[in-house]
């Protein structure tokens, strides 16, 4: 049977835009790749992201590529509910089949979403973990936020997650601050997966780790994405990370998506001048 009708996307970003300052048609027209800047010369408005659309299905990972200031973080923050974008819509299909419209949620609803349905793995583990408390405690924190109350069950779940992310169980009761960078990142992954979210955002997940450690963490992430059928968005400036984790990508420049495609196609046959420059620089 021919069935290549893709399943409904788990995460959908439609027409997302965010500007700092007033906007009108000229602000939009006079910023972006053609203008060579995201800052509007006359009004000083910064159009951090505009007209960004993509979707990601369960079991799929989408890469977002671009230099600093290209709008990647703005897009990620909008998905995470950290900022309320100027325009556009972000929706997430929860595990129970209901739809969350993130761009219309209250701060309390966002907090619940971030506990149950959407996790972020930060570049810096200190942003996702409390380094003063133990590995087990960090995970317990996320579980209790989701309503877990039984101490033994929490311990058991934490141990299961740490085992899956290859953190030695004899370190479970040590403060995360005493862990190496690679192991902190593994604890962050364990915490991110604690409540079986449907979407995970990976923000430079291996940047700052030694090459050998990064390879191990990357390999772990790849395995977890497959195993849990997560919809993932991966931001990285490192093409080897994008190549290993994602099947599709978008390239951003000055707040706009300038190209989208299959990952191998973007790396071997980039069409947009900016993508060609990025790939050329990485391959040089």
């Amino acid at each position, binding site marked *: 049977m021919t069935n290549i009708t893709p399943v409904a996307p788990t995460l959908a970003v439609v027409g997302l835009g965010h500007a700092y300052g007033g906007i009108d048609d000229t602000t939009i027209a006079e910023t972006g790749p053609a203008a060579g800047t995201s800052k509007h010369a006359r009004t000083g408005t910064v159009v951090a992201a505009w007209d960004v659309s993509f979707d990601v299905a369960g079991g799929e990972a989408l890469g977002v590529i671009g230099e600093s200031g290209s709008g990647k973080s703005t897009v990620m923050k909008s998905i995470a509910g950290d900022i309320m974008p100027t325009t556009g819509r972000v929706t997430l299909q929860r595990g129970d089949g209901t739809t969350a419209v993130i761009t219309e949620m209250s701060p309390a609803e966002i907090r619940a979403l971030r506990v149950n349905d959407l996790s972020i793995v930060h570049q810096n583990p200190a942003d996702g973990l409390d380094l003063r408390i133990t590995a087990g405690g960090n995970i317990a924190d996320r579980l209790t936020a989701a309503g877990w109350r039984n101490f033994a069950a929490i311990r058991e779940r934490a141990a299961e997650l740490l085992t899956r992310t290859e953190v030695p169980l004899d370190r479970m009761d040590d403060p995360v601050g005493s862990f190496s960078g690679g192991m902190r990142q593994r604890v962050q992954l364990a915490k991110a997966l604690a409540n079986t979210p449907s979407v995970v955002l990976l923000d430079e997940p291996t940047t700052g780790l030694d090459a050998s450690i990064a390879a191990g963490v990357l*390999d772990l992430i790849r395995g977890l994405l497959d195993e849990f059928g997560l919809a993932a968005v991966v931001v990285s400036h490192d093409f080897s990370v994008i190549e290993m984790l994602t099947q599709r990508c978008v390239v951003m420049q000055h707040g706009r998506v300038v190209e989208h495609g299959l990952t191998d196609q973007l790396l071997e046959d980039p069409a947009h001048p900016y993508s060609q420059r990025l790939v050329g620089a990485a391959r040089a």
Partner: protein
Amino acid sequence: MSSQSVLDVVQLHKSFVLHNIDGRRVDALTGVDLHVNVGEHVALAGSSGAGKSSLLKCIYRTYTPTSGDVILTDTDGTRLALSALGEREMVMVRGRRLGYVSQFLRAQPRRTPMDIVTAAGILRGTDVTTARVLAMEALDRLRLDKGLWDVHTSVLSGGERQRVNLAAGTISPPRLLLLDEPVSALDPANRTAALDVIADLSAQGVAVLSVFHDLEAMERLASRIVVMRDGRIESDGPPIEILSTLRAVAR
């Protein structure tokens, strides 16, 4: 088009515009028409730069065709226009319907030959247990030393990696398999074993479009040879005819 057709390439053009090198345009394919039927092995011949690899990459969508159509006909007769398919749909077509084996193994670190070949089987819809059995069979047929089946591929030689790559590409084979110099690093004995595995694909009804740099491989495997030159097809015919021409040119 015959109902047996698996691949139809119609007036395919591919140009690269090098924006950062004075915007120059390089034409890789200039109007290719090609058809491959069920169980047929079509070998692409021609000198370097003739467009052989570009054609394979355009079919697999590693390159975006500039114009023209690439149509894959599925087992139930559904015609899938690969050149126009959405990205997610294309990801789904890759695997069970369309495979690509290049010269080089591109594997994640910390993966063993067994992991890689089994995963390839699972991707094409085989259950885990069967995939493991098929993976062992494939590695065995390709004469990969059993002691290497469970070590990370980073320690393997070029020839060993190439055999892992070929095992992964041919396990539970897709409907159409693209091969780009898949045996280039193999010694004669391993090469013979690899060519046998590829020959078996045709017996199983897999359509194969290949690039081999040597004429012996084409002679052993091809049911038809297509000669490319300057991004288009120069001749297309039975191996005996084409090979005698190619050999005459080589002399």
